[in-house]
């Protein structure tokens, strides 16, 4: 069974007075299987963030449906959505979204505390994740005391500690220097090898190369997709760049 199924999803934004209607997504369909590592690429304004927000149940589609682990998001009551999100999804954001009021450790514990887990269990879960993400030495520090790369690894730890069905990453390398970005992408590949399903939105070609499959979105539609299969990172890089060039220059020839 697919972990995520997106079927014919459309999203229309209507301006406040109802005058302007903007089609952000049109008839988007795809599925993510367990253990997959999928990147969604597209230019600014192509609708990729809208798509991610809909998958994350932070926004509602105006058409079509989204199923996560077999459950239709539209059928979940508003009050249960937060808990559903907490139990099934992990998030990594471009700007980390760590809370300054908590230490690194407590930031990671936050979703577990919200789920009412015991402290001992939290600690047990933290140990392997912290060592895999190489943050075991900064657990007692505060977010404003650590570097951007460290912050993003902490955010990843927070996303992974709930053992989510699906890890959603929104431009995770966007605010990082290239070394930190490489390190994070290495970690993504590593946890994917351990079986973690990942869906990442990015416009960095380098980030997309690490994924096993890349979806391209243009003007709110799925435009193309590439499988990495046995390609090396360099070959994948070239394929993605070529696709992006087509999108940028004569993309609509295809339509």
């Amino acid at each position, binding site marked *: 069974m697919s972990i995520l199924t997106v079927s014919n999803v459309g999203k229309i934004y209507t301006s406040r007075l109802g005058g302007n209607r903007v089609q952000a997504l049109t008839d988007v369909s795809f599925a993510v299987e367990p253990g997959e590592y999928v990147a969604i690429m597209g230019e600014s304004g192509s609708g990729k963030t809208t798509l991610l927000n809909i998958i994350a149940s932070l926004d509602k589609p105006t058409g079509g449906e989204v199923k996560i682990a077999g459950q239709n998001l539209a059928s979940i009551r508003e009050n249960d959505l*937060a808990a559903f999100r907490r139990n099934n999804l992990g998030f990594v954001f471009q700007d980390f979204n760590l809370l300054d009021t908590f230490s690194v450790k407590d930031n990671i514990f936050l979703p577990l505390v919200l789920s009412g887990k015991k*402290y001992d269990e939290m600690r047990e879960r933290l140990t392997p994740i912290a060592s895999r993400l190489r943050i075991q030495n900064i657990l007692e520090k505060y977010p404003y005391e650590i570097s951007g790369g460290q912050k993003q690894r902490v955010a990843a730890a927070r996303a992974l500690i709930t053992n989510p069905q699906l890890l959603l990453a929104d431009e995770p390398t966007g605010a990082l220097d290239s070394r930190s970005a490489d390190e994070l992408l290495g970690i993504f590949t590593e946890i994917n090898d351990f079986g973690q399903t990942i869906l990442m939105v990015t416009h960095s070609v380098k980030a997309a190369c690490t994924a096993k499959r890349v979806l391209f979105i243009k003007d709110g539609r799925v435009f193309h997709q590439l499988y990495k299969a046995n390609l090396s990172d360099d070959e994948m890089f070239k394929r993605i760049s070529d696709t992006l060039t087509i999108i940028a220059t004569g993309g609509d020839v295809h339509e």
Partner: protein
Amino acid sequence: MNKLLYPRLAAVNMGKQKKLYIPYIISAVFTIAMYYIMCAVKGNEGLGEMRGALFLPEATAMGLIVIGVFACIFLLYTNSFLIKQRKKEFGLYNVLGMEKKHIAAIMFFETIYAFFISLVGGLAFGMLFDKLTSLLLYRLLKFEIKLGFYISFSGILYTAILFGGIFLINLIYNIIKVYRTKPVELLHGGNIGEKEPKAKIIPAILGVLFLGAGYTIAIVTESPLNAIPLFMVAVLCVIFGTYLLFMTGSIAALKSLKKNKKYYYNKKHFNSVSGMLYRMKQNAAGLANICILSTMVLVMVSTTVSLYTGTEDALQERYPKDIAVDVHCSRFNEEGQVEFHPEEGNEMDLALRKELQDSGIRFQDYRRYQYICIVASWGGTQFQPEYFYGGSTEVLYFFSADSYKTLTGKNAVLRDGEVLVYSEGGTQIGDSLSVMNKTYKVAGHTDSFSEIPTFYNVANGIHVIVVSDMKELQELFTLYTSARGQADIYHDVMDFNLTGTAEEKRAQGETLKHFVYDAMSDKGYFSFDAREAQKAEYYEMNGSFLFLGIVLGLLFLIVTVMIIYYKQISEGYSDRERFLIMQKVGMSRAEVKSTIRSQVLTVFFLPLVTACIHLAFSYPIVSKLLKMFGLMNQTIFILSLVVTAAVFAVIYVFVYLLTARTYYKIVSR
């Protein structure tokens, strides 16, 4: 460059920063208006000529100082808040290529605008409300004179100078602030992470000690006379204690909660404990300020209200009858010795009755009684007379059995050397009583004596001693005067009520006053009291107090409200981030809202609750202070305490709801 650029930029800036500038200007307008009103009341010559206006000038002078100092502190505080919030804006200008001197120019124009808007608004407001407050004041003081519209030019001048100075200081502060910071810091000014506060044990313990000391002083102080200096000590202790406890105690307490893993890693406490910890550091001083200001408002308003409402009571207590003539029947002769002339009392009695008859003044309840009143201290075996009335002295009243009967209607059958004793506090008197080497046998104790003259109602202990006859009184007089050479300890009192209206009573009082003064012109010491004339003086004093209490209470209230408003806004901006992040991490909107709400509520009502605790502990000492001002009626004080606290709480909640709305608007935008 266009010369008008800076003035125009400044105007645009102020428009854009409405949320910050409007409260700043409103608070400036209020303080200016209040300062002007105080100036106008003080400078109003019509008021100075009024009958009995002795206390008012002093009260207003005190008010002026307090308002001036407060305006200064308060406007500096609000300004520092304002500039902190605007660092980013100035940083942007700097980065975009504006030099610091250009930023200074913009700030200069902004200050000029803010100053003139505040000054014009404040003065207009002040003039408008000057009339209103004057009317209120006259009503409070029971003055009947109507005044026309009156503008105090000196008031305008003083106000302009004082507030011009304050705004200038603010401008200089802001310019220094901008010059001293690097553009990058300006840009990031708003969101530099704050270190987690450290728990400081020693200051926390000190805070507890200070607060404990203040409370203890307030509770154990017995003598109202000692209460005045001790009250100041207690107030200082409580202020220090409050600051220390808010700044360190709260953090220490929260830290220990955090150490308890089971408690801390719980859905209900996780957010609030860490949030409070984060907040406490930023806001401890602000919260302590709110707490102390609230306490000040409560104490000031409740005491002045109870003094004012208790005026009639105090008058009745102090002057039981409309007219009282007290003849001391003694004077110093040329050798400096005290001569006793008991006949002066008899002469006055006769003359007074005749005068009342002749002038046709209708009166009732006429009575005459004699007593000796001395201040003494217990020397271990007997009472020794003292010159001065102090914290440890007690007051002894000696009545003859006849006077006792006149006052209470009861017979005291006493043999020679026997006395009847009634005591209120002070030294316990057993079977015998020794005064100035004379020993009496105590024949009995009486349990009530409501007619004690109340001059010394604040003494440590009061003893009423009924002796067998006038001869004993005269002997005591001789004993005392030979030892102390003081002439006014003997009292031969004639008092009675008048039957007319207040107006008639006042006129009759005047007539009788002239008569008594004439009659006693070549005799010894005496005093004359007409309640109706005293009434005006009482109302003038208590009314001035109340006026001051209300105006200062209002000022402190506004300051409190403004601090709360600014706190809510700044918290709103920082909470917005948290609000969003927690939602993304898997907290529902309702959960986030309720978490923040409970935190804000705690932070908001902590100062109010603390203020009420302070108020409760202040009760014993303040009630003793009020006794000094003649307020004996505890019920009035308790009632006004409760009513003031309730009214204050209602206003506080109202302000909370109002600012909470702004807060939620910021957070959920």
